[in-house]
């Protein structure tokens, strides 16, 4: 054997070992079960094989914009009043679709300069444009609008991750999804009953403490009547739980201040606890700054009532007996222990910057995953055996060469997946099978060309040489076209389909090495042991 060939053989053995390590790592034991565990430690199974829940949700980013523009409306009103500028109306014409747009009507023409000053000084995030009839329009600057929306998504991902982590789901995937639709992909392996997790993720957990200005009323109409048909401008009507003793489902309504004394971001900690009657509740603590504000508020309102509002629902109404600095509790309704635990966890994880909506939900039960693995592996084994046996029969000794190359191709493919922590899905298993079917094509192209050269009277070494060099370009072209398709699939696909694109691409890349280089080395080795004039078994 010449030296060059020896080095090439060593290289192949090295690659084989490196990728075997990629598949198995250093296994604890070399029994079948030991190897299987070692393998599944490195190559992770997708949701469709191990069971779990896949969710796509959308952040209602307009909620976050509305918070900002509501604030802007308040600032505008305050400044206009301060500078004694008359105006007819300030409103947001379409909060649903155009949340950042504020229309100001009936400003006298001579206040133009003042108005521009207000916009420049106090609302630099907005563009102010004048329209007909003394109407002015404020709209958020596009860059700031886009930033705010993206920030809402990032913050939502962060909050959801906190909540899921504290639920103890192992290896969750939480990431932005799709292109600019403010969507988030959440994958929860092993979660076969998503209802509770979904509730926990969806809760915006917006906690506020407000002053009670009236109520409870049995209905919205009753509240309106009590106030003579018009609600005070600085108050809003919020639903609460039914008064004690009423049937479940009955609601009462409270009139509370629009401004909150304490908001969710003032919260430092929340823990499940029990009240003096042994009823589960949630006890929270405020930050220094929030506590100071709460203290000021309660000092000024001793004797009044305060409302603890969660997600725009009054949870609890309490009389302020004395100034309170930094603790409070939420009971509201009949919370059980689990709910108290969940709520305090949600509060600790922080509020969502905007509501979320579920767009897609897929749950694979574990029994289906088990069946899918069985079916996929069976198809892979039968498909591969068919190809291996065919090659042996059709190409005789050269068939052994092709079969070795194919097996090495598989080892490299699985090793790749181990190294890159790729996820094996059911379509991914199909990708492995297809790699076998498409990978062997390279061998066929080469072998057919060699046979053709032999028929044309070339000697075996020169036929092998010609066969490889002619087939090489064709093989590259065929691989590139398939990989281009797979890459586009990877960009557009999700979950299982992505897994397919990954295995197919890795498999075909590995095939360039195995079908061309490895197969060539084996031919050279066979030829080096033959006498001149011996026929080649192909």
């Amino acid at each position, binding site marked *: 054997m010449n030296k060059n060939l020896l080095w090439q053989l060593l290289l192949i053995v090295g690659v084989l070992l490196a990728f075997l390590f990629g598949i198995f790592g250093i296994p604890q034991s070399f029994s079948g079960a030991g190897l299987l565990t070692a393998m599944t430690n490195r190559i992770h199974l997708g949701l469709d094989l191990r069971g779990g829940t896949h969710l796509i949700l*959308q952040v209602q980013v307009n909620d976050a914009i509305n918070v900002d523009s509501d604030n802007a409306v308040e600032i505008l009103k305050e400044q206009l009043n301060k500078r004694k500028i008359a105006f007819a109306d300030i409103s947001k014409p379409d909060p649903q679709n155009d949340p950042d747009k504020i229309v100001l009507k009936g400003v006298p023409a001579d206040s133009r300069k003042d108005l521009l000053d207000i916009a420049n000084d106090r609302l630099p995030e907005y563009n102010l444009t004048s329209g007909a009839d003394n109407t002015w329009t404020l709209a958020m600057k596009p860059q700031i609008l886009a930033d705010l929306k993206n920030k809402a998504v990032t913050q939502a991902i962060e909050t959801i991750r906190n909540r899921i982590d504290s639920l103890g789901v192992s290896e969750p995937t939480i990431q932005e999804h799709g292109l600019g639709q403010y969507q988030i992909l959440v994958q929860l392996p092993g*979660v*076969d*009953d*998503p209802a509770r997790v979904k509730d926990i993720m969806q809760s915006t957990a917006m906690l506020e403490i407000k002053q009670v200005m009236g109520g409870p009323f049995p209905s919205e109409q009753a509240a309106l009547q009590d106030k003579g048909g018009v609600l005070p401008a600085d108050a809003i009507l919020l639903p609460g739980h039914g008064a004690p003793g009423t049937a479940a489902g009955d609601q009462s309504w409270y009139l509370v201040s629009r401004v909150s004394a304490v908001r969710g971001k003032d919260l430092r900690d929340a823990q499940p606890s029990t009240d003096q009657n042994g009823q589960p509740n949630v006890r929270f603590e405020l930050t220094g700054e929030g506590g100071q504000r709460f203290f000021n508020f309660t000092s000024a309102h001793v004797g009044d009532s305060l409302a603890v509002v969660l997600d725009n629902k009054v949870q609890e109404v309490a009389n302020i007996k004395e100034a309170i600095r930094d603790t409070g509790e939420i009971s509201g309704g009949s919370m059980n222990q689990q709910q108290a635990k969940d709520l305090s966890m949600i509060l600790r994880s922080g509020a969502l910057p905007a509501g979320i909506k*579920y*767009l*897609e*939900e*897929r*749950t*694979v*039960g*574990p*029994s*289906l995953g*088990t*069946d899918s693995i069985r079916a*996929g592996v*069976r*198809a892979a084994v*039968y*498909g591969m055996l*068919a*190809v291996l046996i*065919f090659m042996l*029969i*059709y*190409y005789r000794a050269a068939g052994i060469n092709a079969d070795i190359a194919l097996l090495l191709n598989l080892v490299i493919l699985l090793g790749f997946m181990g190294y890159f922590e790729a996820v094996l899905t059911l*379509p991914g298993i*199909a990708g492995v*099978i*297809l790699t*076998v*079917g*498409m990978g*062997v*094509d390279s061998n*066929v*192209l080469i072998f*057919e060309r060699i046979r053709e050269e032999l028929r044309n009277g070339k000697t075996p070494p020169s036929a092998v040489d010609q066969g490889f060099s*002619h087939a090489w370009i*064709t093989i590259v*072209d*065929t691989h*590139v*076209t*398939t990989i*281009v*398709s*797979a890459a*586009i*699939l990877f*960009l557009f*696909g*999700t979950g*299982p*389909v992505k897994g*397919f694109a990954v295995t*197919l691409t890795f498999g075909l890349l590995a095939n360039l090495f195995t079908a061309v280089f490895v197969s060539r080395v084996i031919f050279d080795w066979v030829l080096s042991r033959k006498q001149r004039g011996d026929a080649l078994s192909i």
Partner: protein
Amino acid sequence: MEFFSHTNIDFLGKKWYFLAFSLVFSVAGIFSMLFWHGIPYGVDFRGGTLVYVKFSHTPNDNALRAAMDHAGLHNAKIQRYDVPSSNEVLIDLDVQETSEKALDNGKNQIINTLETNAPAGRTDLNNGSLSAIKNYLVDKDPMHLGSDADQKYAQQAQAIVDGRDKGQGGVLSSFDQLRGSVDPSVVASLPDGFFLSDFSVRNVEIVGPQVGAQLRRQALLATAYSLAGMLIYLGFRFEWIYGVAAVVTVFHDTLITVGAFSLLNKDISLTVIAAILTLIGYSNNDTIVVFDRIRENIKLMRREKLSEIVNRSINQTLSRTILTAGLTFLTVLALYVFGGEVLRGFSLALVIGILIGTYSSIAIAAPILVAYQDWRISKGKRPAAMPVRTK
């Protein structure tokens, strides 16, 4: 061993037969898409709710249909899934019953309907989640482990779930089936909190209308990008007319494959689109092999007519075209037969696509090259310079 060693078939002479064959299938597919079955979008693209339910006995489709109707799910489609012996049913709600306000409403309604005979105060073990079972055991403490038993009961709950899903295929018909793998005191405690329904939900797919529309658009875009990618790459590697010929051929394959799904009224899901994209890449392989040979022969046979060269090239590569496609077909067939119901649509697309793709690289791609050349000559221009191999 060798098939097709010295063929000499006049493929180009049969181009009218090929054209007729392709037209019949394309037109049949287009007609079916327009006037018969339409494009049978799977749940991924049309939106909707699919619930796959496995029963412990042979399900009664009519009774199920009546129950769903009674529950207000009037448009529920109920069909048997997989082989009859698996006792599986697919319940299909359309997108009207899948609002984004409460995405899982339809699913919950279906499960409630199936669970009508549930005894009060007990939950269904066959559809119980791991955490629910564990919480029950921790509360109940049948093994008298005291307060510090979390991990132990987590293991027991896992054993119960494994016994149900791996041992009994998802549906237990008696608590005794858990004996052996689960602690006897735990098994004995189960009937207090659980009952066994006659079904288990194996898989749920709920796609809201927004995602459906988005995925439809993406699938179309991905297909278009793939075709454009092929055109650019092949135009760059060969001559532009080769790229055009290859892409027309692949488009023909895609059309016939999608048409076949419409004719057979099989759902086109995301994985079917994945298969079609793969085919766009793979179908080109045979075409490239033939084109490569044409390019090579043009240099060797300068005096021959192009149609003669193309015919010779196809014959010379016939053996490898059939072998490579045949071997890939073998693996795809294994996938179709053994790969299970989940992958059935995916492997069906590959089975059809590989057959059509191989046929078309001989019957469509090469004749387009010749037709283009004839057209140039008929217009009085010089034949286009056929390319030289670019290495």
